[in-house]
């Protein structure tokens, strides 16, 4: 199961999807909206995506994982839109016969998702400014901020 959603993520349902009598281990990862980044304070995040490509890239990622590890199930849900502090932005669940596989595949999944799936977040800082987050690209000057 792979989805993009504007609604709150039901990670229990996601986890149930990957459970299996053939699995001895399930690893669930949740990304949540953190308040502090260094000394900067976040009020909220806005997530946007290129939806068709994001879904296609997540599907490719699942296939890559299935080739590398003997996973029993994989599921990913990424939320879009306006998220408040503590909200879940992404949930990813992996099940496998043994725990090492589930941890490795789960870590790979979220690491790769963060570099290849076209989804972007915009910071809503406590000082009132907003800023698209683009790793490796210098921050926008204040004049460029909306």
């Amino acid at each position, binding site marked *: 199961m792979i989805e993009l959603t504007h609604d709150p993520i039901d990670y229990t349902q996601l986890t149930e999807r990957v459970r299996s009598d053939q699995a001895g281990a399930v690893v669930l990862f949740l990304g949540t909206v953190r308040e502090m980044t260094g000394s900067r304070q976040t009020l909220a995040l806005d997530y946007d995506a*290129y939806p068709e*490509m994001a879904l296609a*890239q997540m599907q490719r990622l699942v296939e890559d994982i299935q080739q590398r590890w003997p996973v029993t199930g994989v599921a990913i849900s*990424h939320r879009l839109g306006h998220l408040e502090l503590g909200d879940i932005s992404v949930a990813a669940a992996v099940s496998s016969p043994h725990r090492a596989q589930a941890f490795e595949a789960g870590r790979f999944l979220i690491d790769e998702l963060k*570099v290849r799936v*076209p*989804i*972007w977040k915009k910071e809503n800082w406590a000082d009132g400014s907003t800023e*698209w987050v683009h790793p490796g690209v210098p921050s926008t000057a204040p004049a*460029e901020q909306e």
Partner: protein
Amino acid sequence: MNVTVRLFARARELAGQSEVCVNVPEGLTVAELRHRLGQTCPELKSLLPHLMFAVDNEYVSEARCLGPTVEVAAFPPVSGG
């Protein structure tokens, strides 16, 4: 030919629109499209070297010839998760 370039995130914000139409010769490479996009849309100048390009939901390299492609996506590095 005309190529529609879909823009996302800060690229869309800087350009002030979600897609721009760029007139290019057929068989253009991605590297050349990047250059032409900057001419068509000078607001993207600061972001231009950082943009990633995709065709049919796949990333494409600089050397890739676009052929008869009519739609391309351009966006700065992703930050989902």
